[in-house]
């Protein structure tokens, strides 16, 4: 039965044997999880967003647990692109992991420079462009909240990379019209969209009566945000049914992943769930496959966006 089931997926021209990925910032550079499962057994490792230079990140406390979620305020601590490409990527490729490198910049030009570093690296599956960063040249306005800035970032990355490496753009849900931002980046040449990044939040420590996090605000993740992610995926898939979506936001079971697939995701990332359970990615992957088979699908592809069909079509989904 499982032999006939096609679990594979594609994002742009990149093929993956399964649609389950790690989420950027939730698997570090992958090495830490290798003790718990073979990295090659999942769709891909999405690495922590890397910037041009090494960064210390934000001060502690960097974390606050919230009901069915958590706030994080890491501040993109990392080694910088050169050390990352020298130390982390070779290890991942040697271990047969498929790799999606996530990049983040402070200016439109910095994203293009990061893309130039990646252009010459063999073996990568795709690039995720994290545009939920403040644009230092525009009063710190987050790129992902501004369609023009988002377009400019992706246009620069696209021109630098050429056509080979698929570009997946990670969007922020903290916008009035996520479809408008999606339109801007698809227009600039994005091959796929990653939905959603964390939502901005704050916890105030009632003992100190001050914001709990060192960075004051943090990104909310975990099951608490899942309905927001499902809504965003549904809306964007409805507007751009041909653009592949990597769904994420609070997925911790196969059932949660199926929800995102039905909303329109071609792949699903497991993020915060890994913090609570190092083998969550594997559990989600196995459960999703079983669920799809038990519902009579013969491929993942058949189920993508299924929630958008009108009722009379649901009887004959094999024809899709």
């Amino acid at each position: 039965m499982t032999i006939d089931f096609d679990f594979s997926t594609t994002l742009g021209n990149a093929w993956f044997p399964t649609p389950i990925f790690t989420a950027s910032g939730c698997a570090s550079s992958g090495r830490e999880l290798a003790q718990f499962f073979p990295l090659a057994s999942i769709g891909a490792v999405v690495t922590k967003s890397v910037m041009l230079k090494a960064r210390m990140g934000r001060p502690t406390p960097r974390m606050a647990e919230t009901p069915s979620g958590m706030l994080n305020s890491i501040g993109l601590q990392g080694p910088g692109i050169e050390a990352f490409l020298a130390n982390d990527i070779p290890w991942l490729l040697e271990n047969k992991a498929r790799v999606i490198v996530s990049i983040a910049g402070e200016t439109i030009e910095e994203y293009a420079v990061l893309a130039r570093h990646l252009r010459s690296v063999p073996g990568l599956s795709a690039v995720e462009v994290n545009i939920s960063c403040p644009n230092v040249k525009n009063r710190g306005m987050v790129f992902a909240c501004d369609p023009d800035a988002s377009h400019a970032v992706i246009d620069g990355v696209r021109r630098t990379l050429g056509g080979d490496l698929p570009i997946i753009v990670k969007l922020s849900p903290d916008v009035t019209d996520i479809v408008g931002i999606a339109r801007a980046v698809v227009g600039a040449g994005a091959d796929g969209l990653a939905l959603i990044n964390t939502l901005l939040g704050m916890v105030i420590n009632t003992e100190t009566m001050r914001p709990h996090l060192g960075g004051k605000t943090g990104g909310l993740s975990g099951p608490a945000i899942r309905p927001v992610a499902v809504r965003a995926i549904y809306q964007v898939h409805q507007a751009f049914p041909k653009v592949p979506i990597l769904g994420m936001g609070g997925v911790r079971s196969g059932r949660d992943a199926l929800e995102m697939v039905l909303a329109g995701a071609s792949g699903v990332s497991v993020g915060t769930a890994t913090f609570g359970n190092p083998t969550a990615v594997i559990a989600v992957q196995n459960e999703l496959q079983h669920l799809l088979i038990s519902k009579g699908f013969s491929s993942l592809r058949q189920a993508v966006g299924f929630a958008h069909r009108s009722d009379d079509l649901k009887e004959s989904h094999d024809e899709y």
Partner: protein
Amino acid sequence: MSQINRYAEQMTATVLSNKRVGQYHQILLGVGQVVRHCRPGNFAAISVGGENSSLILRRAFAISRVSDRADGTMELIVAPHGAGSRWLCAQGENAPLDMVAPLGTPFGIPTTSVQALLIGGGYGSAPLFGLAEVLKSRGCRVDMILGASTASKIYAPLEGKRSVNSLKIYTEDGSTGIMGKVTDPLEQLISDGQVDVIYSCGPMGMLSAISSIAQNSDVVHQCAVEESMACGIGVCMTCVLPVRSDDESLAMVRSCIDGPVMDGSRVQWHLVGQIPGSTP
């Protein structure tokens, strides 16, 4: 295979007993053969609240001691402070627990017999008794100083006292032992040449105070730090501390995989809660 988390296993542990000791719970778990890889200073990360809990993160607990009796047992000393630890302290006999262990870098054990001083604050003393047994078996002299705000917050089991050469207790309110802090006698002990290595576990303020006294001597200070963690396995980057590296540069180091045991002289205690090189 990666070296990070190299002995860690995810398993179902079973509560064998759960006893109240002062303000703490002494929880004995059946964990199986993983005890072979557990060293003093390692910790265990446990899921709390049950399957549909809104508490999504594991809780990290220092492993108090392990034994290979009864197919492998592990003891944890837990203070019921928050929702997660209260849930754990409410678990009865035979309750299953989703656990990942052993995690983190353990205390370094000297290859020669040295004079070791073990300092514990509150239930931070828990892993020190297992450490004392290992040090004694290596021929070390083991002195212990425990401290807390008040008597009921001292954790010092009877059988643990047998594994040390001397035990002094300090409480801030004088309700048991000597009134004062664990750091009060430290300078004198060091200058008397009675200490080669300090092993410490407890609140960050205590670890910092010990470090500042030890730094004027050639005493080595290995401390088990306590910084809030989301994952315990090195992926989330929340539990970082500013630490001076071999090349003198400063780095934000993960206390879950590059700790919890750290060289106290390298931790930049005055920069905890800041970012080195930036204005606070």
